[in-house]
């Protein structure tokens, strides 16, 4: 507790300027004995836990405060009408290096002359806008807004010089603005646009000037609207350009993510399997099994857009059959040829049907010795049937050994309890066929797709 108490006192004594007791250049003052408190290091913005710039999280970690408390305090201070805290925050964002980085955004921005020019231009436009708003004499708005000149310029510099992750954050914050603008704009319009804008602004300003003499009440309003329209025309393309930058950058990020996901996926699946196959090269059956498993996984990913292990929220019959197929193939190494005709949602009866089919398939894989098992499911208007068939050694149903009775009973029992039927036909040397049929109440469940 003393750890928290002490920095608080220390800050009170030495901190007339808010949360940056050492000024923005926190890293220049790391000799101040801060190691006893909080993170023990110099003040760093915390990129891992941030809502905007990570300044609050950085301060919290630095001084050992609760992040939420710091954030609430920040917001409360920001609401103070003079509005000086927001630019202060932005300056902090600019000048405090992020944890794990050597230089602050500000030091990088010093070399970004185009960014500085843009920031200056933007600030001047903003000032112009404020001047227009000032016409309405809404004092508190302008009082609050003038400091935001620094905010706007600072954000511009951050935007141009921040690391990609920080840009993403900034973009997230700016998204509501960007969404309003559409990215389509053509260069050849700019001359026309600027001309119209100039006419509007000059005309509006002239009108404003004349309005003082004529004293007409409505005229200033129209003039102000004209000026605003002019400003929108001037600013519009810039907004659009920013919005387009946002879109392009987002697309690039999505592409990069997809590529990364693809690489991970291929590494996790194909490369691993290939490695396994090389090590098992002397065991043909294992190799075939691995290749089949991989093929199935890749196929379901490429052509059905789902991963092998991704759970289906609402399972359908086809998905259930596929799952049996995959499980049996991977566990017993016997290929399962599955064909599904039609599809429908699963209910309890159909789950029982699938469970019985799984039992029969597993049994075929374990005992029949067949090289392939076929699994056929068909959704008919009033029933769902499932056939599990192998060309294995089969058995004489009249002389069922004890260990296979379990199958017959569990399959028959499962089906009978739900009103279904199970028919097992087998002959020695000719394989086994288990036909399952479950009646469906069509009025209750959905129609087949």
């Amino acid at each position, binding site marked *: 507790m003393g750890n928290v108490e002490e920095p608080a006192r220390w800050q009170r004594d030495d901190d007339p300027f808010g949360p940056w007791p050492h000024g923005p250049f926190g890293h220049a003052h790391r000799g101040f004995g801060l190691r006893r408190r909080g993170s023990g290091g110099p003040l760093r913005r915390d990129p891992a836990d941030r809502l905007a710039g990570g300044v609050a999280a950085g301060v919290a970690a630095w001084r050992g405060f609760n992040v939420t408390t710091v954030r609430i305090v920040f917001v409360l201070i920001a609401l103070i009408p003079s509005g000086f805290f927001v630019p202060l925050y932005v300056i902090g964002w600019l000048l405090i290096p992020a944890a794990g980085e050597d230089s602050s955004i500000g030091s990088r921005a010093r070399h970004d002359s185009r960014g500085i020019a843009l920031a200056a231009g933007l600030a001047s436009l903003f000032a112009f806008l404020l001047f227009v708003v000032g016409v309405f004499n809404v004092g508190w708005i302008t009082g609050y807004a003038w400091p935001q000149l620094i905010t706007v310029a600072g954000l511009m510099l951050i935007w141009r010089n921040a690391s990609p992750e920080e840009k993403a954050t900034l973009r997230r914050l700016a998204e509501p603005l960007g969404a309003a603008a559409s990215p389509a704009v053509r260069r050849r319009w700019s001359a026309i646009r600027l001309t119209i804008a100039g006419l509007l602004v000059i005309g509006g300003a002239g009108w404003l000037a004349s309005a003082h003499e004529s004293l007409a009440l409505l005229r200033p309003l129209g003039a102000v609207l004209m000026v605003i329209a002019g400003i929108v025309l001037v600013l519009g393309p810039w907004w659009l350009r920013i919005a387009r930058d946002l879109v392009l950058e987002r697309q690039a990020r999505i592409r990069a993510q997809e590529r990364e996901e693809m690489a991970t996926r291929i590494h996790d699946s194909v490369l691993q399997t290939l490695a396994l196959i090389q090590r098992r090269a002397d065991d043909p059956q294992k190799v075939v099994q691995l290749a*089949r498993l991989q*093929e199935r996984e890749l196929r379901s990913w490429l052509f059905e857009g789902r991963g092998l292990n991704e759970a289906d929220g609402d399972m359908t019959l086809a998905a259930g*059959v596929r799952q049996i*197929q995959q499980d049996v193939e991977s566990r017993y190494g016997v290929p399962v040829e*599955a*064909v599904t005709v*039609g599809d429908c949602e699963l209910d309890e009866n159909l789950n029982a049907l699938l469970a019985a089919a799984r039992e029969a398939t597993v049994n075929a894989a374990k005992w029949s010795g067949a090289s392939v098992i076929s699994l*056929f499911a068909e959704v008919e208007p009033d029933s769902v049937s499932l*056939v599990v068939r192998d060309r294995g050694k089969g058995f004489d149903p009249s002389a069922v050994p004890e260990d296979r009775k379990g199958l017959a009973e569990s399959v028959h029992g499962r089906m009978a309890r739900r009103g279904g039927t199970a028919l097992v036909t087998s002959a020695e040397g000719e394989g086994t066929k288990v036909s399952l049929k479950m009646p469906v109440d069509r009025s209750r469940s959905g129609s*087949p797709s």
Partner: protein
Amino acid sequence: MTGVPRVVLVDDHGLFRSGVRAELGRQVEVVGEADDVQPAIDLIASVRPDVVLLDVHLPGGGGQAVVQAIKATQPEVRFLALSASDAPEDVIAVIRAGARGYVTKTISTAELADAIQRVAAGDAVFSHRLAGFVLDAFAASADAADGVKPSFDPELDQLTSREREVLRLIAQGYTYKEIARELYISVKTVESHVSSVLRKLQLSSRHQLTRWAAERRLA
């Protein structure tokens, strides 16, 4: 058919072509290979094979482009479609263009050789998967029969119950011989049922077949 069938391989994967060529060995005579639509059309026109083993996916368009081009000039050339994707829309498109059958690329060598022989002899070859597609497609079009312009011959629009049974057994992995025994009919009858299904599949004007295939993504 005398002797081994003369076969052209059309597939954009060289590795796959050489694999198939090596596996089939002397069971067929591979008279040419092509890796895209136009080279395939030129090659087939010049070597006049009995059977073309045709990948459904080719860089310069679907396999059906090859089938359509050759059907116009050399109707005696038969096509067996091969695919790794099992995407029903591709398979149905190639079959409807005129291919005599469809098998997956994971098929065993013996089965592939058998399928080639059968296509060369003028029969249809349905893999278990294609049988599933067809059952599904015709079931779907029977379900959605309302408000659809039927074919001039309504028989084309639905399968008989016998054809359905045969398809079901094919989908379960039965061979023609096993089907014949199961249904107490001759192998010839099984073959004629399958050929008739193929005809319906190619001639039915039910455009749901195509739409079904486009909408459906099978296991």
